[in-house]
């Protein structure tokens, strides 16, 4: 499903964010990406989305090498891979409903489908009654949940989440994890960058640990593994 082949990424300012990453993620897998601040987790995700280009190496998604992909096809790549961003990236001038509906309009969903699907996912993240409000009227945790709703509404084949529980209290965080586990069971590949030790330890899934741009650990049914 996803394969990183000897990926290096050096930013313009000389920071070596990733140094020789080799990783294979299978269809339907649930993978935690952990590591200290600045380890390269977000960079890893940005490369998958073609938000940044790797300095060397190649990335295979769904049997296609996306590093030699034409710019034109980027939108279609991003429809396969949904993302929950660390900074939410909601459209300030659209209501929650519209923010989620927008992701469906982009892929050309029918109004009927949209009317059925959007309230459903807003319900899944517990925001049914806030549908008509704007992002600036929400608390941090609520914004994060809208971002999750938008990411899952199109039933993507790959879901990437960058710190999706960073602004959530433990209870709400677990609600979100249940949603993710649910869609993972439906066959979606999930890649989640996180610092939430509790969650990683309890979920018992594959854990890949990054440190200074390198993979230092890759275990099935792993734990967070950093001292606190």
């Amino acid at each position, binding site marked *: 499903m996803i394969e990183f082949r000897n990926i290096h990424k050096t930013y313009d300012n000389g920071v070596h964010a990733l140094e020789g990453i080799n990783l294979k993620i299978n269809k339907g897998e649930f993978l935690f990406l952990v590591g200290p601040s600045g380890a390269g987790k977000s960079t890893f995700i940005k490369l998958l989305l073609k938000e940044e280009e790797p300095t060397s190496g190649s990335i295979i998604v769904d049997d296609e090498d996306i590093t030699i992909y034409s710019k034109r096809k980027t*939108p*279609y790549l*991003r429809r396969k891979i949904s*993302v929950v*961003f660390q900074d939410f*990236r909601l459209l300030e001038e659209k209501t929650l409903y519209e923010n989620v509906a927008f992701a469906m309009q982009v892929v*050309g969903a029918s109004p009927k489908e949209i009317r059925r699907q959007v309230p459903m996912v807003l319900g899944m993240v517990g925001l049914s009654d806030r549908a008509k409000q704007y992002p600036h009227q929400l608390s941090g945790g609520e914004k994060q949940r809208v971002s999750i709703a938008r990411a899952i509404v199109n039933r993507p084949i790959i879901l990437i989440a960058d710190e999706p529980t960073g602004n959530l209290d433990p209870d709400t965080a677990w609600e979100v994890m249940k949603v993710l586990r649910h869609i993972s069971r439906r066959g979606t590949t999930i890649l989640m960058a996180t610092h939430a030790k509790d969650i990683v330890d309890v979920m018992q899934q594959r854990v890949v640990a990054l440190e200074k741009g390198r993979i230092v650990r890759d275990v099935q049914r792993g734990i967070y593994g950093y001292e606190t």
Partner: protein
Amino acid sequence: MKLRSIQYVLQQSFRGIWRNKGMSVASISSVAASLTILGLIMILILNMSHLAGLAQSQFDSVQAFLVDDLEPADIEVLGKQIADISGVAYVQYESKEAALANMKERWGQQGYLLDTLEENPLPNSYIVHVGHISESDHVVEQLNSFTEIDEVKYYRDIIDNLIRAAELIRSVGLLVIVTLVFITIFIISNTIKLTINARKREINIMKYVGATNWFVRWPFMIEGTLLGFIGACIALILVYFGYHTVFDMVTTRFFVIFSAYLLTVQEMMSRTVMMFIVLGAGVGALGSIISLRRYLEV
């Protein structure tokens, strides 16, 4: 494009305008302002050029004095021959008696001086009206080749100066209008650029949820077109009422006869309507597409 998409695009465009009210008003008014200026200048220049044309028509005649002792029949034949010269609009005969009477009338107060003349020293003549002032030279040349014609009189200097002045007004005017059209295009596209710049985050997010470039572009393009179109309409209304008022003021408060020399409000509008709408809406649309380009590169 599917019907559903068209509906989506239109809906997004109107919402875009409405949600960014402040900026929409700013863009529309900048477009209106620059087109209004263009309209003002066009009024000035087109009228000047029109006046130059009218002034020319006052000097579109050449007087051909005939030799003495021509038979009335010969004179008539000559008249027909002159009328056949290419460029001649029509011909008027002035007998020596008529000429003297005219002269006396023109001299007015001092006309009595002519009463002391023993005989009429003035020749018979044809007044030859040319179709366009620029053809005078050629007509005069033809007239000189007739043996029956003694001398040809025409306002060579005035005509030359008028032709030059008209040429000057036309070329300077064209230069000014073309410059202005470019400046207007510039201001409109700048405004659209600033409007879009303020929304780069929005565009960025759209691209990250998987929107294709055209999916992002369409609503912005329609929005730019609408902003430009509304601006153009406002400018047209301003130009229309502005010119109407000035036209009325000039023709009633100043010279009534002036109305004949000014382009009518209708003529003026017929020259600006299409131009303004194309400039406003076209530049709005193009400006949107061009300004979007750098933000779509993500």
